[in-house]
């Protein structure tokens, strides 16, 4: 194992209700990576994320994060789930929600230091003005930012995000990605995106998941046509060529 290989999946298979979600998956994520996981619904995107987090165990194969079993190194990973599964009537302020990121086995109550870390994380996503606002009064994009802050306040080395741009408009999406791009200087970032074939311009690689997993570096395309459709500079993933030093072919 090389030192900069933070996440290694070796021949992973995972089935749900007798249906193979992932089959013989090999994947290496290096330190400093900023990758988007794309693929069709039910293709195994979230499953891949949950396997890396150790929330579910593979039926076959070995997963190593920082060279260890995922559940041993959870504290070094930050996770942002989809906010849609959270209760929208839950009485909690932004502060309360982000403090969850400071939950730890070792202490029952939050310390002053915890609160300082939380305020720093909230500042990092530009939400300082909302510290005492009710979480449920926020817009979708603001909620995503708060959940990113919650993932950040434990100072993780790897940040995993499940559909951070679901249900947000294009401007909010750009905003979220510029925050993530800044964070990428400090940590490896993996995110699930629901858009197949369209990946924002910030990402370094694209991981295509549809039972099999293939990782591509992104290649810039300056097509005016695509610009028209998506109103922004984009990178396209090309599935038809051998790419880069890690190259592979689809066949």
């Amino acid at each position: 194992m090389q030192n900069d290989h933070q996440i290694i999946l070796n021949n992973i298979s995972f089935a749900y209700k007798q249906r193979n979600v992932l089959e013989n998956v090999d994947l290496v994520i290096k330190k400093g990576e900023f990758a988007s996981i794309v693929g069709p619904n039910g293709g195994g995107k979230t499953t891949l994320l949950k396997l890396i987090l150790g929330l579910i165990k593979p039926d076959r194969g070995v997963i190593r994060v920082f060279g260890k079993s995922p559940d041993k190194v959870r504290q070094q990973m930050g996770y942002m789930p989809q906010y849609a599964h959270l209760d929208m009537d839950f009485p909690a302020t932004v502060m309360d929600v982000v403090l969850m990121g400071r939950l730890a086995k070792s202490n029952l109550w939050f310390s002053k230091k915890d609160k300082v870390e939380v305020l720093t994380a909230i500042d990092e996503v530009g939400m300082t003005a909302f510290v005492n606002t009710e979480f449920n009064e926020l817009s979708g994009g603001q909620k995503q930012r708060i959940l990113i802050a919650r993932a950040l306040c434990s100072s993780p080395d790897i940040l995993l995000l499940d559909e951070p741009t679901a249900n947000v408009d294009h401007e909010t999406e750009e905003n979220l990605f510029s925050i993530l791009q800044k964070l990428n200087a400090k940590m490896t970032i993996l995110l699930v995106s629901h858009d197949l074939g369209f990946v924002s311009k910030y990402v370094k690689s694209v991981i295509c998941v549809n039972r099999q997993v293939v990782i591509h570096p992104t290649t810039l395309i300056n097509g005016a046509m695509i610009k028209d459709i998506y109103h922004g500079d984009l990178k396209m993933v090309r599935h038809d060529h051998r790419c880069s030093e890690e190259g592979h072919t689809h066949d």
Partner: protein
Amino acid sequence: MIDMVYAIFDPDNLFLKYAFIMGALASISFGIIGTFVTIKKIGYLAGAISHCVFGGIGLALFLQVNAGLTWFDPMLGAVLAAIVAAVTVGLVSLHAKEREDTIIGTLWAVGMASGILLIDRTPGYFNLSSYLFGDILLISSKDLLYVACLDALVLSVSILFFNRFFGVCFDNEFTSLRGINTSFFYLLLLILTALTVVLMVRIVGIVLVIALLTIPSAIASFYAKRLWQMMLYSCLFCTLFTWTGLCLSYSWSLSSGPTIIVLSGAVYLVLLIIHKFLRS
């Protein structure tokens, strides 16, 4: 109103005084646990637990009379049944993903039915409706002591583990990623729920107890911005409903449990309509 005050302090109406004290004491546990039950959406599990309690009461009566175990009083049976039911129901909801509601529903009905069968096999007459719908005449000073102890337990556990319970209720998955044993705290929450349900059976009974567990919290959620506020408001609403309900039931000679429930249900409905109307 004045008559009511006199009635409460009338030495002949000791039961009424006990009922009022019981109502206030029980509201503390009810407000706290009810809030957890409401936000975690486990009212259905609490319902199953409360009906299983009847099985425990039946077993206790059966053993007292048929096996001569006089120390095995219905309260002890109820507490044991509640804890066993809480752990069973909790494990089912943690592990049986697809069939969860079927299994819980079965436990709910079987717990209740086995209680009735056990009582059928026990000689003597038992007033079943007092267990089902509550009977304030049955409240003794020992019950008040039990409820005070429960309050102390619920308060101390909730304060000690507040942040963990918050995490388990708001986002269980994320909390487990922070290294917290979420299954343990979930089961602990269900056990506290079970104990709370048992002690409130005296006032409102097994069938109605779930309503009093969830309605005050549901109303509190209209006004609370934070979890602890919701708990505080729930306690206050719960006290308000039990006291007002007791007054009404005493003045109009109605059953106390159903009066309390109908009152709180009506208030909830009105507030719900107002809030939906105001928001839209």
